[in-house]
């Protein structure tokens, strides 16, 4: 494996969320709050539309890091594992029933700790060119 460097961008990816994605996540997670699948309920509590679960956005945004750690299908072996992950939910992601919503993730190495064998990866997560997760930081324990 080549040396890691602070500032190195390890992934730039986009994910398409649809109403189908939301229903699938509701079932998988057990979060059946209807603001994540019913337009009438979302409107009744003053929301601009049906929202993606914050935890769906958080869970999806870390996937490029997981892919990077697992070598994205080549034979380089597993680089490490995600030992901590934190976010602030700063802005909701409205998922249009027809168009869906796209989230973009840029993952950058922000810090390296050679002694602890960890790397901190910061995520920039945007929807419609606005940040939706603040202080999104992943700590990776290197193998």
């Amino acid at each position, binding site marked *: 494996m080549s040396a890691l460097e602070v500032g190195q961008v390890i992934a730039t990816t986009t994910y398409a969320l649809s109403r189908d*994605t939301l229903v*699938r996540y509701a079932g998988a997670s057990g979060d059946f709050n209807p603001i994540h699948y019913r337009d009438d309920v979302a409107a009744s*509590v003053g929301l601009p539309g049906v929202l993606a679960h914050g935890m769906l956005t*958080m*869970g999806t945004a*870390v996937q490029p890091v*997981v892919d990077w750690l697992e070598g994205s299908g080549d034979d380089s072996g597993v680089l490490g594992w*995600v030992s901590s992950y934190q976010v602030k939910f700063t802005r909701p992601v409205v998922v249009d029933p027809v168009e869906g919503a796209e989230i973009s993730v840029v993952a950058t190495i922000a810090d390296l700790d050679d002694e602890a064998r960890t790397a901190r990866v910061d995520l920039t997560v945007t929807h419609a060119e606005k940040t939706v997760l603040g202080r999104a930081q992943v700590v990776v324990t290197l193998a």
Partner: protein
Amino acid sequence: MSVNPELSGRVLPPAPPYLVGREKVREFARATGSTSPLSLDVQAARAAGHADVVAPPTFAIVVQEATLAQLLAEPDAGIDFSRVVHGEQSFSLSRPIVAGDELTATLTVTGVKNRGGVSVVTASSAMVDADGAHVVTAVSTLVVRSADGDDA
């Protein structure tokens, strides 16, 4: 009504043990856009040294949910679920969660702040495996808006 400040420091009884199922791990992985062989393919997980498929980094939210439900059900909590917004979330793991783990989660309220019609509750759910060893701590920050016209 604001959130009861005396909740701070309260430790709830452990939730019933949660058995992490292989298909649940796969279902959660697919639902969060994962294509990770370690989460989907038992052979790939075993080849990498794991006992079974590896849960994605945010999987512990599924286990934490039962403890948050306990908190909302505390009779003196004063937390109206319909007014709760998820503010922040973190996971700190001692090791990856794998299928077959039996996790027991215990929630501690680590903070309650009431200010300007908004309450911020921080709940930390520590999860141990069947041997009592720490696996993950999931921390949720919940923002609870007071009812309209209530400045408490």
